[in-house]
């Protein structure tokens, strides 16, 4: 147990390092921008009427403080971190003066919901089919399904999402192709609303699942066909253990360890996929928010979203990492 705690502590240190490096990179990249958020805000606000120079000067001072842009780069960096640990990313520029954190937390559930459900579905489908295809190597149906899914795998998220959009939006318009819910929907929690949200999530989730399942399938099939030759599987076959039991408790159980590690590694990529899918289907998550923020030049919102995505993915990776020793008794604290 003590060994496990040391392991968790080391992984936690790695988590902090990833977050620190990632967010620092984000900070320095954004501070190289030619865009001056203060000038932009002032222009945005003063567009509607003339103000006297003294008031504008006061506004500049206030805004500079709000955006944490006082002093040199290092002082700004310190300010940035001290605000970040309190969850404060300053006010949004495009939706001034709504705090960035508030905007993000409104969009977050959509992305998290889409990402988690799509990941779970593609992980389950891909691994189940991969294990079956690796174990029953002669089945023709499994071969055809695998080939189909593997063929989809290299297609970029955008192109696949785009093809789905054409298929279900123009060729056979059965599903809503944009948005997270109906425009004029009653947003009080009701069965109809849940159904509506699920209907809207089918296409974006399908794009993610179709691309994701193929890569799980390939990995699992390769693992399975290697594990099948291991002594413990041969031994179990000689022991007259039923083939479903061998597949479940011997093959899949052993393949799950590397597959879960793979899940941790691919989370970053899954996140990229969600962002792109959201944009194609106009899904109201943080991907759409990010693109709109870039187009609007919303400095603090971009910074906040990038930081948050790094923190989110890093935490997910950390959780999966510390779970894997529980699955494989051989992984000790290292």
């Amino acid at each position: 147990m003590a060994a496990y705690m040391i392991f968790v502590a080391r992984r936690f240190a790695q988590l902090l390092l990833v977050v620190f490096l990632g967010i620092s990179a984000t900070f320095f990249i954004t501070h190289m921008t030619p865009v001056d958020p203060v000038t932009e805000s002032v222009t945005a606000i003063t567009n509607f009427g003339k103000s006297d120079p003294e008031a504008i000067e006061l506004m500049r001072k206030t805004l500079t403080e709000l955006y944490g842009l006082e002093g040199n780069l290092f002082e700004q960096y310190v300010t940035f971190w001290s605000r970040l640990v309190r969850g404060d990313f300053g006010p949004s520029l495009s939706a001034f003066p709504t705090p960035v954190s508030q905007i993000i937390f409104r969009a977050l559930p959509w992305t998290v919901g889409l990402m988690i459900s799509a990941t779970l579905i593609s992980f389950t489908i891909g691994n189940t089919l991969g294990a079956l295809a690796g174990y029953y190597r002669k089945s023709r149906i499994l071969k055809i399904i695998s080939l189909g899914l593997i063929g989809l795998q290299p297609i970029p998220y955008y192109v696949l999402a785009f093809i789905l959009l054409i298929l279900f939006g123009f060729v056979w318009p059965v599903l809503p192709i944009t948005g997270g819910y109906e425009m004029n929907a009653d947003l009080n929690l009701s069965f109809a609303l849940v159904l509506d949200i699920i209907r809207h999530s089918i296409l974006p989730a399908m794009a993610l699942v179709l691309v994701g399942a193929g890569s799980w399938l390939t990995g699992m099939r390769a693992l399975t066909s290697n594990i099948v030759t291991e002594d413990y599987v041969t031994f179990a076959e000689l022991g007259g253990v039923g083939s479903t039991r061998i597949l479940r408790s011997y093959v899949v159980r052993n393949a799950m360890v590397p597959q879960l590690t793979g899940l941790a590694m691919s989370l970053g990529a899954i996140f990229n996929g969600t962002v792109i899918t959201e944009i194609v289907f106009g899904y109201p998550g943080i991907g759409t928010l990010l693109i709109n923020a870039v187009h609007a030049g919303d400095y603090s919102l971009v910074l906040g979203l990038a930081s948050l995505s790094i923190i989110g993915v890093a935490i997910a990776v950390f959780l999966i990492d510390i779970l894997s020793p529980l699955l494989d008794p051989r992984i000790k604290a290292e």
Partner: protein
Amino acid sequence: MFTIVRDLIRYNIEFAVGFAILLLLIGAVILSFFSPYPAADIYVVAPDMPPDAEFWLGTTSRGQDNFWQLMIALRNTLAFGLGVAFLSRILSLVVGLTAGYAGGRVDRVLMAINDSVMVIPHFPILVLFYFVLKDDMNWLMLVLILSALGWSYDARLIRSIAMSLRTRPFTTQSVYSGMSMRKILVEEHLPYVMPIVFATTMNNMIWSIGMEITLSVLGFTDVDTPTMGQMIYWANSHSALISGIWWWVAAPVVAIIVLFIGLFLLSMSMNEYIDPRSRLNRMGS
């Protein structure tokens, strides 16, 4: 080398198809240099013409010949993928071989950086770069940025091979005969990892071209260098699908899918060639 390619074509259907697609692409690249129109010029032909004998793939709403646009876009996209692959391979080789050979603290530091790069979501970072660079975000800049992001996974792979190479007797012998570390890595270990480097090149190209397409489609790159993504971007911005100019969208989408399937088949068959275990599995089926 030639006999390997010949054997693979004869006995490995995936490689044969992938190789045929590769030849097709090389043909397109050569063809692109004979384009009658400069790539960036617009309204050189009648706009919105459907495919016919004169314009094989029709013309676009911007008055460009769709076929020649596609050839040039293919060339640029391929050059982009190769550029990223080349630079990131160098990075992953340096990091992987050094970490695997040196071990100890060097290894731990390099791998901590490596793992951090591996899990950071690339897309927000790329968007961030566009946000900062705006119009300075050109083709070369994107190659550099993607190279800096796309080396970590393969560096880990190379490291694991380098670690096993370190324990082989020939490495010990090289050390005792006074070879420098750089010399051992370049002359002794590099040849062992080259096949892996080639196989990962394909996967890396699939990744970087996919990223480029996505960024272009969103308008987050230099819009004046025609690439596969740019074609879709311009088609979308002229609402090509809604106004029925389907060939403008279909040409790049089909070309992208063919390109990706070709790269994917090549990478799959190369992996199989490197890993005899998967060859054995093939025999078993």
